């Protein structure tokens, strides 16, 4: 039997639900050198700000049981470099729609980055990062209150010519309220979860491992937290939900869709195995067969 892996995200058809998550896939080139990245459902490029940013001091990486912590701090070459260099380069190796992940330190910056990416036909969606735990005064500062999240949503919506997906932080007390605030402000979709704020301490030096003290915890270990929050948000809003957090294999893609995700981002797994997304996509039909699933779209939210 033919298994239908396709899904839809804000009206755009995806061949499969697998989307490499922002910050784990650069602007695609490192992976395009290894395999044909047109097998992906879509991909979310590195969080992009108005100006180029170097990010935080190193060490930026720490290991955890079944996961990792990063405090990169939104290192990126700036939006103009992305439109002038990265997007044309990407066109050579990737002919599907891109999710433009953007970030900012003020409402004005979010709007300006969106404006400068508007009109790019390669872009299918804006994914608005209001949840980066590794920068001060931006990122997560907007995403931890319903009001801040709504303000960014409304501002970006005015400048955007593509569906706007708000990427939420799990570091909040009521994820449903923030998702609802985004929906009411005009968001076309919600993606979650960004990383959980965490830390590790080196026993020899008795100091934090990460130079920035704390960082974003991700990887296989966070899957249950992500599933729970996707489940909650699916019940709270009518707009599509993109699920992510700890997904590593085809079974977990299905689990995330049962929780309510119409598409699934894979993040930290790409860093451990550069072929992770390709292999998960290849394994999907077999997993669907195992669980008696004819079409992935039929199971979205099936656990409710």
């Amino acid at each position: 039997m033919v298994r239908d892996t396709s899904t839809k995200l804000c009206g755009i058809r995806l061949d499969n639900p697998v989307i490499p998550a922002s910050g784990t896939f650069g602007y695609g080139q490192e992976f395009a050198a290894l395999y044909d990245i047109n097998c992906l459902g879509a991909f979310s490029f590195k969080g992009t700000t108005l100006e180029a940013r170097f990010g935080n001091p190193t060490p930026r990486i720490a290991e955890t049981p079944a996961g990792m912590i990063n405090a990169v701090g939104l290192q990126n070459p700036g939006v103009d470099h992305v439109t002038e260099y990265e997007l044309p380069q990407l066109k050579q190796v990737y002919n599907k729609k891109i999710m433009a992940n953007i970030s900012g330190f003020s409402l004005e910056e979010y709007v300006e980055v969106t404006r400068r990416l508007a009109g790019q036909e390669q872009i299918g969606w804006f994914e608005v990062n209001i949840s980066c735990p590794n920068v001060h005064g931006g990122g997560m500062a907007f995403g931890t209150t319903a009001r801040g999240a709504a303000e960014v949503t409304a501002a970006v919506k005015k400048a955007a010519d593509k569906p706007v997906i708000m990427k939420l932080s799990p570091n909040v007390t009521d994820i449903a309220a923030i998702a609802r605030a985004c929906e009411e402000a005009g968001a076309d979709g919600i993606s979650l979860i960004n990383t959980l704020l965490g830390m590790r301490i080196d026993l020899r030096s008795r100091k934090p491992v990460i130079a920035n003290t704390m960082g974003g915890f991700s990887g296989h270990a966070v899957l249950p937290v992500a599933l729970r929050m996707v489940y909650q948000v699916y019940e709270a809003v009518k707009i599509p939900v993109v699920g992510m957090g700890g997904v590593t294999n085809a079974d977990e893609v299905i689990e995330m869709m049962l929780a309510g995700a119409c598409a699934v981002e894979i993040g930290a797994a790409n860093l451990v195995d550069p072929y992770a997304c390709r292999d998960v996509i290849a394994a999907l039909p077999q997993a669907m067969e195992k669980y008696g699933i004819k079409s992935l779209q039929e199971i979205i939210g099936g656990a409710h």
Partner: protein
Amino acid sequence: MKKEIYIIEENYPLTASVYKMVLRGDTSAITRPGQFVDIKLAGFFLRRPISVCDAREGRLTLIYKVVGDGTRAMSALKAGTELDLLTGLGNGYDLDKSGDAPVLIGGGVGIPPLYKLARELCARGCHVKVVLGFNTAAEIFLASEFRELGAEVYVTTADGSSGISGFVTDALKTLDYTYFYACGPEAMFRAIEKIARTSGQYSFEERMGCGFGACMGCSCQTKYGSKRICKDGPVLTREEIIW
């Protein structure tokens, strides 16, 4: 870069904390000395980046120091075990800059990648000098292997228990050379930087996420812009480094 399954042929201690692991597998992605591999270990989320000591004809030699849980687990692996490796990572050393009498300077566990470099420079007909720095005589490894390549070897120990008493710079300051290649702790690099009389290349270490340029976990700033230690490095030229 290639992702390959290797089989361990040998894995044994050279000193109290330094181990040698020889693996069999496809080494074709390893094109330059100074590159590294990234090893998946059961029970650990992130891979372990380890510099290539030597690679040829399907045989990969790694020399690593047990410094934490990951390398401790590595040291317990038996011959016959299969390991999942990303190979051919990083830029490696540029041999074309060497001149006819380069000096290779290694400190402790920074020494292994200099072995493949020395072998290839000797094969090119260079007169290769090697300065190897250790804390004490009991920690010395690889010195005789460098001699067998035909290199002129100078061993220094911080406690004076073998070779020249002092640091690598105590040997370096007495030598003539056309270029230098260094690998070791950053404190050693800073000492070399004060006395080196030629241009050269340093190989850096950093905590890495992916090892192949995707996560920006190991970025550093250079005079020519930001670079990723794993992909644009680990070897940086003396001219570009901001100390």
